[in-house]
């Protein structure tokens, strides 16, 4: 059976988030991930796209976004790629999140959720080409 692939090229706008979640859900399910793991992948991609919308592009300007999914061995690899400003999200610890929550602040929650949902989250920037968030999750049986 051929390995399913995902290749979305979209306008980077929050109006596309619901559609992105649906496409990613269908893709992750087709890759054979258990339901809970599918939910994790959907949330992680949503958070990565939200980061792009918040940090890579100026509000209101048309911008491009790519979401690429592949399967490599027993891993699903999702790349969220933008062509805007470089941004370098710092890793966030559980202690930092708990401290923020006691002040009712949400700073870092998205990055924290991505880390919790995936086995690996990596950011990289290819100068004058693109920035991307690369997220990996192992496909374990139900």
């Amino acid at each position, binding site marked *: 059976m051929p390995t399913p692939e995902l290749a979305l090229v979209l306008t980077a706008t*929050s109006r596309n988030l619901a559609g992105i979640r649906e496409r990613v859900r269908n893709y992750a399910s087709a890759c054979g991930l258990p339901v809970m793991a599918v939910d994790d992948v959907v949330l992680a991609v*949503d958070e990565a796209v939200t980061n792009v919308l918040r940090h890579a592009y100026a509000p209101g300007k048309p911008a491009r976004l790519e979401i690429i999914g592949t399967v490599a061995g027993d891993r699903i690899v999702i790349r969220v790629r933008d062509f805007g400003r470089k941004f370098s999200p710092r890793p966030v610890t559980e202690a930092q999140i708990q401290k923020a*929550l006691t002040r009712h602040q949400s700073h870092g*929650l998205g990055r924290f*959720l991505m880390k919790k949902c995936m086995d690996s989250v990596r950011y990289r920037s290819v100068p004058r080409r693109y920035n991307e968030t690369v997220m990996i999750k192992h496909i374990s049986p139900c």
Partner: protein
Amino acid sequence: MIPFSLQVQPLGAPGQYVIQVTGALDMKTSQELELACQPLMQKGQGKMILDFSRLEYINSQGLGVLLQLQKQLGTRGGGVVVAGLSERVRGVFETTGVHKVIGVYATAEQARRNDPLFAKE
């Protein structure tokens, strides 16, 4: 995928509301929730139950609005609690620890009866 909608119901006492949130809370819809809450926050202390029994999905932006509401309302004796979380939405609360700083109840009615926020003064 259920479309996003909000339904606001007064609880009887001034400044107290139940807000039923349907669909998903993401970057786009969280802004809509925040906007809908702004005029309600001008009335009384501002005590809100967010009924999530029809909420399918929440991300960090949705949690951020809840925390912001709690922060703003808490300074004047008000606050926000949530009710009716699905397993998945509850999982996001528990993964982040947000359930430790915002009251979580099985139903809106339980929240109204049991949370100190809504105790008769």
